[in-house]
């Protein structure tokens, strides 16, 4: 596709026969005029008065020259280009679907009329025409449901007279579609889609081509007496949409058979106090049957709610009924949601031995702004065999309490696994409401218990060490005992000798002869 052609560049003077008036640069009329020059076929009403007729018949040429001069002057300044590129282009070459939406009541063999696809781009497209059912995301975005079963269902309900065609630049193609099977008691929320792929691709460097998938939504209700307008609200919750920006979210489930457009508001009160501190209007997003769409209300950023606990009450009018739901909110600071969030850092590969419990170790980081202990659980599934994917057991794990930005440990024991083979250990980190914060998976292959030969070295070494220690201890004790005994004997001998010497001295002092003394001494 060629670069975008901007319609805001030169002023345009339109002086064609039967169409009078002046079109100013950048105006919608200029865009329309440019579109006409590209062959888009769009029409823009221009002023047709006596004055303009006079101007066109007498002053057309001079004015045109003046405008051309003005254009030249406008383009000539060096900053002109930058200024113009800042403006949003109003008309680019592309694909136009007309009508953009088909509304009505479903009925068998209902003709949907002609849908025209016009190519105002310089690219030739190959276009595939296909009916589709609508899939709607929780954000409210509706897209064609590309699942094979949905595509087959759409093809059963709707047919078109053309399946594919080539659309050249400036060409148009009309496609007629018909609803085949739904009766007046059914609905049909789908689209007639045109999948346009460029016939030639850019082949320079790493390049991107552009394809389109567009078409009118075909929104058909059942006959009035068969319509059911039913809806339910899921529990509301609060989302931190930015710094000091809160979004109140009310999920609405459409249980009826027609599209619903709910309207309502959220009222915020301090916990335990009746006084309303804030009210926010919920944006009404259309909900197609079977889908859940989050209706969002934004807290006024100028009105800061201080730290504390709050109660939210949502009230929505859906069809003829008014539905209510409520939830609580804890703020850790002004318009700052208390966030108990966590991320798993590591789940160590568990070592599992057949017939033995398996220890599980993991760590996480508190990524919220309050101290808390997340709930952790391990889900064990068979990873192979007949029961592949089947949950064998879900067990709680113990997670340590941690402060914000700190790391905590998760641990637990998984009892003996039932059979051999591989298991998938999924560790889930949950908040206090059971919402999953993070998860990690490890595959565990059970190992057989170690054989006697393998285990022997393991036993022998400690036994040998214990024996050596025992022997050493015994020897040490014996040696100590021997020393103690010899020390005691020496002490006795020293005492006896001293006593003898004392007696000899005493006898000598009393006048006994040496002979007697010696005799007595050796008695």
């Amino acid at each position, binding site marked *: *596709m060629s670069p975008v052609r901007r319609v805001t560049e030169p002023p345009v003077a339109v002086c064609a026969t039967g169409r009078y008036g002046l079109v100013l640069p950048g105006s919608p009329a200029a865009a329309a005029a440019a579109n006409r020059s590209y062959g888009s076929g769009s029409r823009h009403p221009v002023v047709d008065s006596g004055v303009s007729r006079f101007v066109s018949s007498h002053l057309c040429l001079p004015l045109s020259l003046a405008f051309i001069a003005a254009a030249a002057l406008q383009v000539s300044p060096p900053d002109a280009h930058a200024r113009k590129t800042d403006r949003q282009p109003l008309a680019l070459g592309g694909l136009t679907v*007309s*009508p953009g939406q088909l509304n009505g009541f479903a009925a068998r063999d209902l003709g949907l009329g002609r849908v025209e696809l016009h190519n105002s781009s310089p690219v030739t497209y190959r276009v595939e025409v296909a009916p589709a059912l609508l899939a709607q995301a929780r954000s409210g975005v509706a897209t064609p449901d590309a699942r094979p079963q949905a595509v087959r269902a759409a093809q059963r309900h709707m047919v078109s007279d053309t399946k594919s065609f080539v659309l050249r630049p400036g060409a148009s193609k009309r496609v007629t579609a018909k609803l085949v099977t739904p009766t007046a008691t059914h609905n049909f929320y789908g689209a007639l889609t045109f999948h346009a792929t*460029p016939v030639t*691709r*850019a082949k320079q460097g*790493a*390049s991107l081509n552009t394809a389109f998938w567009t078409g009118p939504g075909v929104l058909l209700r059942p006959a009035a007496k068969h319509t059911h307008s039913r809806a339910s609200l899921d529990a509301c919750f609060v989302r931190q949409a930015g710094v000091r920006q809160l979004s109140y979210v009310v999920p609405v489930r459409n249980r009826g058979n027609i599209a619903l457009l709910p309207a309502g508001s959220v009222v915020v009160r301090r916990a335990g106090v009746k006084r309303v501190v804030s009210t926010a209007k919920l944006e009404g997003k259309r909900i197609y049957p079977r889908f859940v769409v989050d209706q969002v209300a934004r807290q006024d950023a100028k009105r800061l709610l201080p730290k504390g606990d709050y109660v939210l009450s949502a009230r929505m009018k859906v069809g003829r009924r008014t539905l209510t739901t409520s939830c609580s909110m804890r703020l850790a600071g002004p318009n700052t949601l208390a966030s108990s969030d966590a991320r798993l850092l590591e789940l160590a590969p568990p070592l599992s031995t057949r017939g033995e419990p398996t220890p599980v170790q993991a760590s996480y980081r508190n990524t919220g702004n309050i101290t808390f202990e997340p709930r952790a659980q391990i889900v064990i599934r068979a990873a192979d065999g007949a029961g592949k994917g089947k949950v064998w057991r879900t067990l709680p794990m113990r997670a340590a309490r941690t402060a914000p930005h700190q790391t905590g440990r998760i641990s637990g024991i998984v009892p003996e696994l039932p059979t051999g083979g591989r298991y998938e250990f999924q560790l889930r980190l949950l908040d206090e409401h059971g919402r999953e914060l993070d998860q990690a998976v490890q595959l565990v292959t059970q190992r057989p218990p170690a054989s006697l030969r393998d285990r022997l070295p393991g036993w022998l070494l400690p036994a040998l060490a214990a024996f050596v220690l025992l022997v050493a201890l015994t020897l040490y004790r014996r040696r100590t005992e021997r020393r103690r005994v010899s020390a005691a004997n020496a002490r006795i001998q020293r005492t006896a000798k001293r006593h003898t010497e004392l007696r000899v001295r005493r006898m000598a002092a009393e006048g006994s002869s040496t002979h007697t003394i010696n005799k007595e001494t050796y008695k």
Partner: protein
Amino acid sequence: MISLTRGRGVRAAVLALAVAAFTPAAAQAATDDAVVAASVGSELTMSAANPAGMTLTHATPGTTSGAVTVTSTASSWSLSIRDNAATGAVGNMRLTTDANQALENALEFRLAGGGAYSALTGTNQAVTSGALNDSKTIEFRQSLGATEDVIAGNNYDLTVLYTVIGA
């Protein structure tokens, strides 16, 4: 005007009569209002320019951007994006001469003006929403793997599919 003298008032009256006398009869005829009614038809236009080609090196990821303009008579619309290819290495740029050879990393995209890049996949991912006439710029980024083997001069491409349904 309050400060007019009698002489000036007479002159003004004479001038008014003269103008009335010389005015063509057609201008004095009673006018009929012809009401031209118009109602807005239902239409949906999507247009986009091909983003400029990127130059890929191991040191610097290639970046480019493309503007998408949606003109709708419906009050709101949502733009989704995905890889146009349904098979093969969906989301990865492929060698133009051999679609079986794809780059290691997926093409990434984001709405211009910040936010994190997301990998392009084979399923629709909402990019943005708008109302009536609006133009959005989408930025693309393609990085090469640290040890990825690529040959200078080889061309890779991918067709980005923009989806807007009138619903």
